[in-house]
């Protein structure tokens, strides 16, 4: 069964450093998402991407964040200058023409 994959599974970085989180969505899916989950809290929407552009972003997704689909298969989330409060689990999700969003296993980001 096709699945969403994410790398790395864990990332530790120093405050102020740039990180890139990578995702490979399910092939032939058209809609791509990033969500985050701070430890013990609910899953929060960050950004959606469709037709090679951002279709919606949340208040969390400020100028420090960017997304890219560089090669037709990968979908990346870049945080330019990480803050302590960026520590969270980041989930990538993708959706085809149906309703269901399929989530990846997540990348646990720890900012020190």
């Amino acid at each position: 069964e096709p699945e969403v994959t994410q790398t790395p599974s864990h990332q530790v970085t120093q405050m102020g450093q740039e990180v890139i989180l990578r995702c490979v969505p399910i092939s032939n899916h058209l809609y791509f998402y990033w969500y985050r989950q701070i430890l013990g809290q609910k899953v929060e929407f960050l950004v959606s991407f469709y037709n090679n552009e951002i279709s919606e972003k949340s208040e969390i997704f400020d100028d420090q964040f960017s997304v890219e689909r560089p090669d037709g298969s990968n979908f990346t989330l870049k945080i330019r200058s990480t803050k302590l409060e960026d520590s969270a689990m980041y989930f990538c999700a993708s959706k085809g023409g149906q309703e269901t969003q399929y989530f990846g296993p997540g990348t646990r980001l720890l900012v020190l």
Partner: protein
Amino acid sequence: QQQVKQSPQSLIVQKGGIPIINCAYENTAFDYFPWYQQFPGKGPALLIAIRPDVSEKKEGRFTISFNKSAKQFSLHIMDSQPGDSATYFCAASKLPSNTGKLIFGQGTTLQVKP
């Protein structure tokens, strides 16, 4: 308007019991209501979902009850098993749209005791 409120925060039942998790939403434009199951260290996985044109949907041991007028929906797990111990999230979305972003509830940690 965008919030989805979920209760209880945690739930403990004996094997065979029927845990019930409740969610309420505000935005009447929402028209897709999924439930996701999450095990520790894993991503959320779709369990069951409902559209507002039906009041109930059953898949195996999992049932969603939907009350459109009250803007509430709930998940029932029949004959619960220890393997059902996980965190459950309700969510809501507006379809169709170019986003279809999911708005999640706060989550319910379920423990099913053997």
